[in-house]
């Protein structure tokens, strides 16, 4: 029964992992960029929320309305100004640029805000929970995060399937040169895709901070690995696979946590390596890795 509780907690945590991985998946799918700064940008999102709260006194939930669009704009600009140039130079350059960003963000944050954790209060949701039976209780906040993740993934799926820009993005994923031949400005498509990726990762960053009780500068070094493991476990090129991957990782971590507080990270990594060894295309993925 205790495992049933762990599993339900793991599923809820998995929602958060999935949300944090969607942006990584989209950036790779459309632009073929693996964003090494993904985790640090999540942390930046958390800090932007903290700054917003400090200056306006609004609740953390309302800060989404400011931070998420702001990060979207930042994503568009980073793509147009830095990564677009790097993309022309081959495979190495975009990786190097994102790695540079991943060094700049946490170290700047330490200098500006110290190493301490900055609070991102959840509000009244923090303590409320739904008691299913005597062993299983589901926290309202984790349930809300899972809900947000599922809504975001469905929305993104619909956006890619049904809108014009979504079609362009899928076309860019298949063959960006043909897209250009059709008279579409691929740079704009790329910029918007990166903007969406940054928006979703900002959401995930704030929610992650709220879950952990706050944000601290080096959180990104961990969250980038979670996001990446989620994508690979689920399988590249499948958004629902990403949700599944997040849940597998979440369940693995919460069950390991039952045994020892030191184990969740290690077991999470081992599950990832196991998937890599035995199902290299992920649980739901298409064979694109090789």
């Amino acid at each position, binding site marked *: 029964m205790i495992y049933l509780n762990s599993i339900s907690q793991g599923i809820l945590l998995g929602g958060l992992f999935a949300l944090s991985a969607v942006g990584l998946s989209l950036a790779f799918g459309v632009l073929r960029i693996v964003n090494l700064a993904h985790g640090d940008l999540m942390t930046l999102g958390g800090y932007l929320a903290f700054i917003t709260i400090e200056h306006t006194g609004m609740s953390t939930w309302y800060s989404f309305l400011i931070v998420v669009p702001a990060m979207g704009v930042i994503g568009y600009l980073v793509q147009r100004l830095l990564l677009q140039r790097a993309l022309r130079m081959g495979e190495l350059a975009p990786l190097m640029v994102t790695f*540079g960003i991943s060094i700049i963000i946490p170290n700047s944050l330490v200098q500006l805000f110290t190493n301490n954790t900055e609070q991102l209060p959840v509000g009244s949701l923090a303590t409320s929970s739904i008691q299913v039976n005597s062993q299983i209780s589901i926290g309202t906040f984790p349930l809300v995060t899972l809900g947000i993740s599922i809504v975001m993934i469905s929305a993104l799926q619909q956006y890619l399937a049904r809108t014009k820009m979504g079609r362009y993005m899928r076309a860019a994923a298949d063959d960006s040169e043909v897209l250009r031949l059709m008279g579409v400005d691929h740079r704009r498509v790329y910029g918007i895709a990166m903007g969406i990726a940054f928006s979703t990762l900002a959401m995930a960053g704030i929610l992650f901070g709220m879950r952990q009780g706050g944000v601290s500068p080096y959180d990104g070094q961990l969250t980038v690995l979670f996001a990446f493991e989620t994508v690979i476990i689920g399988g590249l090129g499948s958004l629902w696979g990403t949700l599944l991957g997040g849940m597998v990782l979440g369940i693995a971590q919460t069950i390991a946590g039952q045994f020892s507080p030191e184990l969740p*990270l290690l077991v999470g990594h081992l599950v990832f390596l196991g998937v890599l060894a035995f199902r290299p295309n992920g649980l739901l993925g298409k064979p694109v890795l090789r």
Partner: protein
Amino acid sequence: MSSNIQILRSPKKAAYGSAGALLLFVALAIAPKILDQSITNEWVKLFYLVTLASMWNLLAGYAGMISVGQQAFIGLGAYGVFVFNDHGFSAYESGIIASIVVGVVAVPISFLAFRLRGGYFAIGTWVIAETLRLIIIRFPSLGSGKGRNIQNYTRDPILRNTYTYWMALGVAIFALSACFILLRSRFGLALQSIRDNEVAANSLGIKVDFTKRVVYVIGAMGCAAAGSVICIQSIGVASPNAIFGVSYSAFMIFMVLIGGIGTIEGPVMGALLYFFVDKYFSQSGLWYLVILGVIAIIATLFFPKGIWGEINARWNLSLFPVSYQVKIENNQNDSIHLSKKEK
């Protein structure tokens, strides 16, 4: 119009280069007997930086494998010193044995890592490094999460520093010569063809995975040797998080990018530059790392060939050439130098 075409491998400059390098190595080897130890002790860091940069360059610049997880092998090399030291070997012997063992360990790891390509390979290697760190800190005999000291080391500080210096220098020279010899061989040609186009290389009969695996293992051994030097110099590991830290990857990438990727000389220049930057600016807080990040981005976007690449493009000054040059002499007797390899 008749013309003579010559294919050159080692122009005169390269002969000077090799002779100069040899003299420099000899001079460096006797330096601790002549100079004050406070000076030569600092150079140990320079030597392991040169080793790390050359190894990362071998992987990324010649085999197209961008790893942000080489700290896995730095950490294993450092911890390997404890393991073999506890079994009665001297710290220096332990470092050498550990590097070889890490090479063996890298073989199965490569099978996992090679499941991934490009950027995913990069993060995959990072996960592997984290996994190894989390496994190592579960051993109480290795100090758990708190690091530990070398038990059995040379007590006399002057002797110890001299030995450490020689080991660090030896590792650096070994790493550089290995790169040079490897890249001038047929193997190096295969490697560069893989970097430029894996599919084409494969269709020409090059064993892509095998070739990459050899390089990966050499890279692992080089980083392990550097890791054991780092461990021996400070007679232990202060924190597993630092020795397995991703910041080592940041420094390696910085050195190689600034110095010039895909050349033998570039990483050495990058290491020299980083050595001085670190010496004079590391006290000024983390802004210095921020600036390193900014410089790495600017270098990537605007000076992709790095310092050595720019020098080479201007004066054609390849001291350790691993590519071929075509020299055309036509009857007007003016000669044109063409670099066969531009990348």
